[in-house]
């Protein structure tokens, strides 16, 4: 382990365990190109054809900006819950968390819990209010009673920052994963992802993006359920038997690596408790904060609340999403331990030196082959790739809406843009973002992508989350307060991340990090809240009076939805 075990494990898991996709090798080096896997390629082609069919169907329905951004508000709570879960349960959660459990056992569960607990918070404090106040983007909500231009500038900046860091990581991860699974060269892989995602978003807008996400979520849940069931079936549905066998396998591996019997037994048993996470409590807490509160500030997730018709459906969608995501994490826990028992001791899946063929992240993929043969391996590989595409499409849509709705329609046109022009601007933005993502994906091929993802989360927790909470819940909040506070949070998170071991030492090659912790959130998030509070208190401008006077009307609408624009407005 490195000097800061939490740093490395945390960052790797952020990259892996989260919608950001990256094979373990993708983080630090090159993945080995594999031979073409034909069942996987066939399955994947079937998925692509089906989703392009949906895009074609959806394209006929995208007529207004509302259709494009929010599927006309016609998505039900159940469908939206699945789509949100799809945004969350990436190939990375699936491959990354099961790989973490495969390597260290219990630690994988710690991440799963962090990934889940943001959802209840989002529901209790934000979800319904978001739906009642907003139409297309979370900036609609924040700027409800504030001066449009500065607030939307901040929102567009932070949305694009979060989306871009996320996109780069996705593209790099996708390229590595495809290279690994399908035997395609990296550049082709990145180009394919970029081209497909442009099709989905450009022609199908939110309708196609949502349905692609739903199909993928169902496929992923189906595959993971089958794998977990097969694992438990082999152990007579006794978790204790599964864990005992896993400990036995790990003990055997340690013994054959030359440990004394006592050490080997300790090593084997260590997978049943927390490991590397404990070295640095402050980083652990800061990282936990980024996971929990970052979730409630991710623009592509917040945008999903505008696709349902009202607050009631928004609320239901969180319950469905939380249920599916929680279920999925429990499955990955079983799959990870299953991989220890089926894969770790099977020479078919190992390199001569005992490491996993194709890299550490392939544990679940090998388990699929062990329990279902080549066909199931193909299905699981295709599903793993499909998830990347869907997540990338959602991110791009969110970035495009920040440009067309927040910058073009609200700032340039002062809210007077017609729906057709706004739609046109989004459609110009999508290929630009795609080309940008492809170029950055290629440029960053050899780069460590983990920090970009951790950055995206820290930025969301330090900028969007405090800004949303304060503007929604505090009557004294002013335009100047949220803009200054939001920028303080985002920029502080950015600067501290650059000074942290992940960049300052690993990328820039300095000997000692200026900022020794893995996540800036424990400092940058409170700093944002404090700045919003202090600046608002000190704000005696004329605008501040208007901002404060606007609170009652905002509150009534946030709480009751009275006067809320139905998302379905055509």
């Amino acid at each position, binding site marked *: 382990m490195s000097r800061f075990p939490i740093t490395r494990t945390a960052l790797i898991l952020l990259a892996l365990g989260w919608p950001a996709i990256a094979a373990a090798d993708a983080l630090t080096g090159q993945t080995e190109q594999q031979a073409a896997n034909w069942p996987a390629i066939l399955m994947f082609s079937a998925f692509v054809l089906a989703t392009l069919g949906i895009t074609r169907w959806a394209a006929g329905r995208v007529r207004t900006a509302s259709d494009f951004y929010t599927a006309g508000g016609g998505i039900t709570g159940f469908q939206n819950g699945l789509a949100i879960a799809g945004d969350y349960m990436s190939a990375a959660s699936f491959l990354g968390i099961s790989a973490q459990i495969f390597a260290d056992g219990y630690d994988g569960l*710690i991440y799963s819990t962090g990934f889940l607990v943001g959802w209840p918070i989002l529901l209790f404090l934000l979800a319904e209010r978001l739906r009642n106040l907003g139409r297309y983007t979370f900036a609609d909500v924040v700027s409800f009673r504030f001066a449009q231009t500065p607030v939307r500038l901040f929102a567009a900046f932070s949305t694009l920052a979060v989306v871009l860091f996320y996109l780069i990581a996705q593209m790099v991860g996708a390229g590595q994963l495809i290279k690994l699974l399908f035997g395609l060269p990296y550049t082709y892989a990145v180009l394919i992802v970029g081209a497909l995602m442009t099709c989905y978003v450009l022609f199908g807008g939110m309708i196609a993006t949502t349905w692609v996400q739903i199909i993928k979520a169902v496929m992923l849940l189906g595959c993971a359920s089958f794998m977990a069931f097969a694992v438990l079936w082999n152990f007579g549905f006794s978790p204790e038997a599964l864990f005992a066998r896993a400990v036995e396998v790990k003990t055997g591996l340690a013994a054959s690596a030359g440990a004394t019997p006592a050490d080997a037994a300790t090593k084997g048993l260590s997978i049943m408790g927390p490991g590397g996470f404990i070295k640095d409590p402050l980083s652990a807490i800061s990282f936990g904060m980024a996971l929990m509160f970052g979730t409630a500030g991710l623009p592509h997730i917040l945008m999903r609340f505008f696709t349902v018709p009202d607050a009631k459906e928004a609320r239901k969608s969180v319950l469905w999403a939380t249920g599916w995501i929680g279920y999925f994490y429990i499955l990955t826990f079983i799959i990870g331990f299953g991989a220890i028992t089926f894969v770790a001791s099977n020479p078919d899946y190992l390199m001569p030196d005992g490491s996993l063929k194709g890299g550490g992240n392939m544990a679940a993929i090998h388990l699929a082959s062990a329990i279902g043969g080549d066909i199931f391996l193909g299905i699981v590989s295709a599903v793993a790739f499909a998830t990347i595409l869907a997540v990338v499409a959602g991110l791009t849509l969110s970035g495009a809406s920040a440009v067309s709705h927040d910058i073009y329609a609200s700032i340039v046109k002062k809210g007077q843009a017609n729906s057709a022009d706004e739609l046109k601007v989004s459609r110009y933005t999508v290929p630009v973002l795609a080309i940008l993502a492809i170029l950055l994906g290629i440029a960053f091929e050899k780069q460590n992508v983990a920090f970009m993802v951790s950055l995206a989360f820290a930025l969301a927790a330090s900028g969007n989350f405090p800004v949303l909470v304060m503007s929604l819940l505090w009557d004294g909040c002013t335009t100047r307060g949220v803009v200054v506070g939001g920028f303080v949070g985002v920029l502080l998170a950015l600067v501290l991340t650059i000074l942290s071991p992940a960049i300052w030492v690993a990328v820039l090659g300095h000997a000692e990090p200026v900022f020794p912790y893995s996540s800036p959130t424990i400092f940058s998030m409170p700093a944002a809240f404090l700045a919003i509070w202090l600046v608002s208190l000190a704000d005696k401008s004329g605008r501040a009076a208007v901002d404060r006077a606007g609170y009652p009307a905002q509150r009534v609408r946030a709480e009751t939805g009275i006067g809320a624009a139905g998302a379905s407005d055509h």
Partner: protein
Amino acid sequence: MEQRGEGQGAQAAAATRDIEQDERYQRLVTTRSRFGWRLTIVMLVIYFGYILLIAFEPHILARPLGSGVTSLGIPLGLGVIVAGILLTALYVRRANKIFDRDLDALRRDYGA
């Protein structure tokens, strides 16, 4: 986009005042936000309690339950996930049954 004319603005302000002074509205908002914050605090305590346990007393989580290898950390970790789902369900249940009923009455009276 909110685009209100002067006259409409005054009208909207009056409507806001009416709703704000409605006792049912005040009761609904107070009860709901108190409930939301309570659940938020419960979730924060559960999650950060778990994180602090990992940060400072990890051996407690590694302790086996009974004679097998299954450790206390496994039901606790899975328990955090299940608690998150249950708290969410609790909120949605109460909101669907009680808050929505009160809200519908308000919305009827104020023409939404």
